């Protein structure tokens, strides 16, 4: 039985009340311009939520990472881990939006939609029932459709929203179809019972189970940006308001991974298939195509969008080797947390550049290092961390991922190739990251320094401390990740 003081319920109550009250206050006050007031309410709600999650962890009220429950949600460490990652992303988005939203209308609705979408993302990681998972999935998606098209007069924003909406609606339709098949062959929607139903399935029904798993991979893969399903992603990331791109790249994408770990990884283990090869091929394709396409881009948001496709590939390595190496899954979770911070920071830097200079074309970024020093420093550190350069946090998560691939070698002869592909791709990504850095620091005439948005500076400083601090001293995060990673081996049955 879930109590009202448990973390997911508390987060729903805190964020839900703030999210519903914001537009009501807007109607009562009848004024348009008080962006900072609404931002402060949203920020306070998010800070209270993340403090509550942290408090629950410190007082050890959270169960160790369990995968199943009788209820529709479970208050476990896996969900708590994702809740912290998603809330950090939502805080980045709220703080980073502060300067951006000054020039836009309807700030109350904007922040309210961010809060509602955050509830969805957090609940996905907590849910242990397919109905709950689907409702949370839609709660996450529907506000983001509106947010991507939030700048109504801008044709790019609208086109990005239309593309995102079509692919998003298709992905949720495919997920519902997968759920319907799963329900039909196992007679339940509780994930524990589904897994049990899969483990003693009539041999004639196994193809249907496979079909449902394929539909889950396709449906979640749309949001994660895996390669055959990635066409919408660069367009949407480029056209959306840059702050909302942060929410998409660092938030909704990670929620897709949470859902995949909850369902697909377990289901595939039970169905006893050689599915690892399929996920491994998807991983290699995703990172290679993402990186190669990124090299050819001329627009900063678009380049970062392809780089986030490539990162979905790295994270997928850990899922592919999960049944044979717990290190791989831990690496995936660690990379998810790091990527949330790194990509969030990079896109907030882009948002800062767009609000002050209104450029994203790489040719126009010449001399940015002198015009906006702190934002540029943040962007450089996030790019280095994304490439996995040693003293930063991104290095440790990649090390764990590739180590996990090597760890699985006795069971999977091709697993080292995953690590090799990952290392080669990291080197490749350093090439285009280096290109951005060269543009920013070594080209262009000396230009005057412009004043940088304070909110962006705040995000930059926090993330630089996070990336450098946990890069030099990674032990606490690694312990946290180990605590949060579910154990997938022979004895995990419900």
């Amino acid at each position: 039985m879930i109590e009202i003081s448990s973390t997911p319920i508390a987060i729903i109550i805190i964020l839900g009340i703030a999210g519903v009250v914001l537009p009501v206050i807007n109607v009562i006050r009848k004024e348009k311009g008080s962006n900072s007031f609404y931002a402060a309410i949203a920020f306070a709600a998010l800070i209270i939520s993340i403090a509550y999650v942290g408090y629950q962890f410190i007082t050890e009220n959270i169960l160790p990472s369990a995968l199943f429950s009788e209820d529709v949600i479970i208050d476990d460490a896996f969900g708590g881990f994702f809740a912290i990652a998603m809330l950090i992303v939502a805080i980045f988005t709220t703080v980073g939006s502060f300067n951006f939203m000054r020039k836009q209308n309807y700030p109350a609705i904007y922040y309210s939609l961010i809060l509602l979408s955050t509830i969805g993302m957090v609940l996905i990681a907590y849910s242990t029932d397919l109905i709950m998972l689907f409702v949370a999935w839609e709660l996450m998606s529907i506000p983001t459709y509106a947010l991507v098209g939030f700048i109504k007069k801008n044709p790019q924003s609208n086109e990005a929203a239309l593309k995102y909406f079509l692919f998003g609606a298709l992905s949720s339709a495919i997920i519902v179809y997968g759920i319907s098949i799963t329900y039909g062959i196992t007679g339940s929607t509780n994930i524990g019972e589904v897994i049990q139903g899969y483990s003693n399935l009539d041999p004639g029904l196994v193809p249907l189970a496979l079909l449902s798993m394929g539909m889950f991979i396709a449906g979640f893969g749309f949001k994660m940006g895996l390669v055959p399903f990635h066409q919408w992603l660069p367009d949407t990331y480029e056209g959306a308001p840059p702050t909302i791109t942060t929410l998409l790249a660092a938030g909704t994408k990670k929620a897709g991974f949470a859902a995949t770990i909850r369902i697909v990884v377990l289901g595939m283990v039970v169905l006893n298939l050689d599915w690892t090869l399929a996920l491994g091929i998807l991983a290699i394709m995703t990172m290679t195509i993402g990186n190669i396409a990124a090299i050819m881009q001329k627009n900063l948001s678009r380049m970062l969008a392809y780089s986030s496709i490539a990162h979905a590939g790295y994270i997928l390595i850990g899922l592919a080797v999960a049944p044979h190496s717990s290190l791989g899954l831990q690496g995936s979770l660690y990379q998810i947390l790091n990527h949330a911070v790194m990509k969030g920071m990079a896109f907030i830097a882009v948002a800062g550049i767009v609000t002050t200079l209104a450029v994203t074309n790489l040719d126009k970024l010449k001399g940015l290092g002198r015009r906006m020093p702190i934002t540029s420093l943040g962007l450089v550190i996030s790019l280095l961390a994304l490439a996995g350069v040693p003293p930063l946090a991104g290095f440790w998560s990649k090390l764990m991922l590739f180590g996990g691939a090597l760890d699985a070698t006795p069971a999977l002869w091709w697993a080292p190739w995953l690590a090799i592909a990952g290392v080669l791709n990291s080197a490749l990504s350093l090439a285009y990251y280096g290109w951005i850095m060269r543009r920013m620091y070594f080209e262009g005439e000396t230009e005057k320094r412009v004043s940088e948005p304070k909110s962006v500076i705040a995000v930059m400083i926090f993330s630089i401390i996070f990336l450098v601090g946990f890069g030099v001293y990674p032990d606490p995060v690694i312990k946290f990740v180990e605590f949060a990673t579910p154990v997938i081996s022979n004895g995990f049955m419900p």
Partner: protein
Amino acid sequence: MANELTEFVLVSVALLGIGIYGLAVKRNFIRMLFAVEIVINAANLNMVAFGRFLPHSGGQTLALFSIAIAAAEVAVGLSLIIVAYRMYHNIDIADYRSLKG
């Protein structure tokens, strides 16, 4: 009884095929939205049919949730289409070309 279930599932698979075909071929935005709706309804039909043949009512509950959520989704989608129509006076997806890589 078992025969009837097969018929329901066959209809649902046919609807799924029609929906995917519509998405792949049509270029009018509203038609594509309809295609997505057909896929969702195929899933709903599946769930109601399975729920009818299983000893509990989970399938019907799930179908109700899915119908309500699909309605919310369509509301957002139609509002995006209205904004696009005001800008372009056209809802042909082939005309939207401001974003390219």
